[in-house]
């Protein structure tokens, strides 16, 4: 059963275009040029119950905007979305009690108070009954190993500890749908790993539906079976992580270890030479030609070892991002406005 249904969802912003210089600033007091920036342009997506989906895309691709739309922070320009049957931007309390949004760069805990006070507040505003609240809180703080930090003011916690507190706060009301916007941003490798492990465990245990955006491929590889690539406000790919390589990369990377006496000459004939460090060489070869090329190589050279690999995922994805067309990005829309710059 689909938990999230999105159809033709669009969001555009009017952004004030300020030209350089003082004269332009003065003109800007009376006449301003706005341009429409299409942050999300026609997204269709269906997510089933219990899925763990990653949104992948460069900065400004529309990932966060999509999460904001789904959590009702902003209203769309057009299109529809339903999460558990609710229209998010109606902001009904019935909906707001059933999901959570965690943003890696924002905190919703009270800065000067111990986290347990913020948790208590969540208990009240989400109407969690005290027994359930205590049980959930103890479970979460045990899993995340932050039980003894509950009494410390939040401002005195490390970034990693704070993120764990944020997660706990967001999960206290046992949301059925969870939106995670870069939950591991700025964390060290150990803390990242902890959070990954926790999310994995939590999701398997509770079968909640999770949408996650992240720049760390490791997060995504560890957690999500399904990956949605968004670039320029459109969905470019929807499928498994390994499928990205199949669909977007026509190459294999072949690492060859030559025998000591081999000349290693004229390797360019076989493919693009990426690196030569005798007696090793790395060559990029068209996927369809791999077996043919290898046969030729083996017949002409003395080769001791061969490794055939897919290109690194990061590289493939970077190519996907940069290959997305750069057109119709903006449509200038001059507008007269008397709004002064306060």
């Amino acid at each position, binding site marked *: 059963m689909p938990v999230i249904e999105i159809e033709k969802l669009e969001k555009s912003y009017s952004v004030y275009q300020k030209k350089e210089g003082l004269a332009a600033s003065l003109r800007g007091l009376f006449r301003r040029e706005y341009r429409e920036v299409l942050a999300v342009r026609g997204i269709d997506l269906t997510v089933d119950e219990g899925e763990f989906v990653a949104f992948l895309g460069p900065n400004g691709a529309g990932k966060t905007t999509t999460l*904001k739309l789904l959590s009702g922070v902003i209203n769309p320009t057009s299109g529809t979305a339903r999460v558990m049957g609710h229209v998010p931007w109606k902001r009904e309390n019935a909906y707001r009690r059933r999901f959570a*949004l965690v*943003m890696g*760069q*924002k905190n*919703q805990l009270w800065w000067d*108070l111990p986290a347990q006070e913020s948790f208590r507040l969540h208990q009240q505003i989400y109407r969690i009954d005290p027994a359930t609240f205590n049980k959930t809180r103890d479970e979460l703080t045990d899993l995340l190993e932050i039980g003894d930090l509950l009494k410390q003011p939040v401002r005195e916690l490390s970034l990693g500890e704070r993120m764990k507190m944020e997660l706990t706060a967001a999960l206290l009301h046992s949301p059925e749908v969870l939106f995670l916007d870069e939950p591991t941003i700025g964390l060290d490798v150990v803390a990242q790993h902890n959070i990954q492990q926790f999310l994995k465990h939590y999701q398997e245990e509770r079968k909640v539906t999770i949408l996650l955006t992240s720049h760390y491929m490791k997060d995504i590889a560890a957690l999500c079976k399904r990956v949605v690539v968004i670039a320029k406000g459109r969905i470019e790919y929807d499928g498994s992580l390994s499928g990205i390589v199949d669909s977007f990369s026509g190459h294999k990377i072949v690492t060859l270890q030559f025998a000591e006496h081999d000349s290693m000459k004229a390797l360019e004939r076989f493919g693009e030479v990426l690196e030569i460090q005798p007696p090793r060489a790395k060559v990029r070869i068209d996927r369809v030609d791999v077996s043919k090329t290898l046969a030729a190589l083996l017949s002409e050279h003395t080769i001791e070892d061969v490794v055939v690999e897919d290109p690194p995922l990061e590289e493939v994805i970077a190519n996907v991002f940069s290959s997305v067309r750069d057109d119709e990005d903006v449509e200038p829309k001059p507008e007269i406005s008397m*709004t002064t710059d306060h």
Partner: protein
Amino acid sequence: MYAHVATWWTILRICLEERLVYRGDFALGTLMRFLPIVTQIFLWTAVFDASGQERLAGYARDHVIAYYLLTMVSRAFSSMPGLAGGIARQIREGEIKKFLIQPVDMLGFLLLGRVAHKMAYYSVAIAPFGLVFFLCHRYFYGLPAEAATQSAIIFAAFLATLVMGFLLGYFLEASLGLIGFWWLEVRSLLFIYMLMNFFLSGHMFPLDMLPEPWRSLVDLLPLQYLAYFPAAVFLGKITGTELARGLLIEAAWLIFFIGLARVMFNRGVKRYSGFGG
């Protein structure tokens, strides 16, 4: 209903705790508020001495100072330091998102925060307030029979003006802060408001000292309810039907600003684009 009250209580309790975190700053801030009283006493003494008269625009020398002390009380209720600026900042920096995501009403939440703020303030300020009023009690001698010191009904009306003054101050400043949805930066606007508030709320001098047409103009504004009105009621300057009319107009302003803040919040959220990540 029980659940609502429990929620309000928790919000109130947590806001109170937060207020008390910075004890030093809090105590100092509270005490510093009383410094201007001393300068005001000197100022008005000088004004009366220079004029050589015992009454100015219907105010006896002592009662001007009593008036000033009373506006301290009404402003202790109606002033909302940092409210409008805080709301505008939350909008600009995206902190407001949490009120859109969580099942909690921002205006209600911040109102409880203010109640906690004031409660924490009074619990500390009651001592210096008591001391100052004790030291200055002679300025309250010779008030008319309609003053709050003589009549329980007037005293009740005075309390009502204080409570309404608090709410009016809250919703008025909240409305100003919500302009942040349209104008991102509201600092200059707040400066103008502060200036107008300073002169037109009666914080500087009793508003009934103003000549026409200024007096009538001030009457059309809600600002007088933030300082002048409670003090004038206490001193017995406003009585009978005039008092009833004043209270009704104040209530009408309050309802207007509650409605305005609500409408602005709903409209603002619709056009909000979720700045800041």
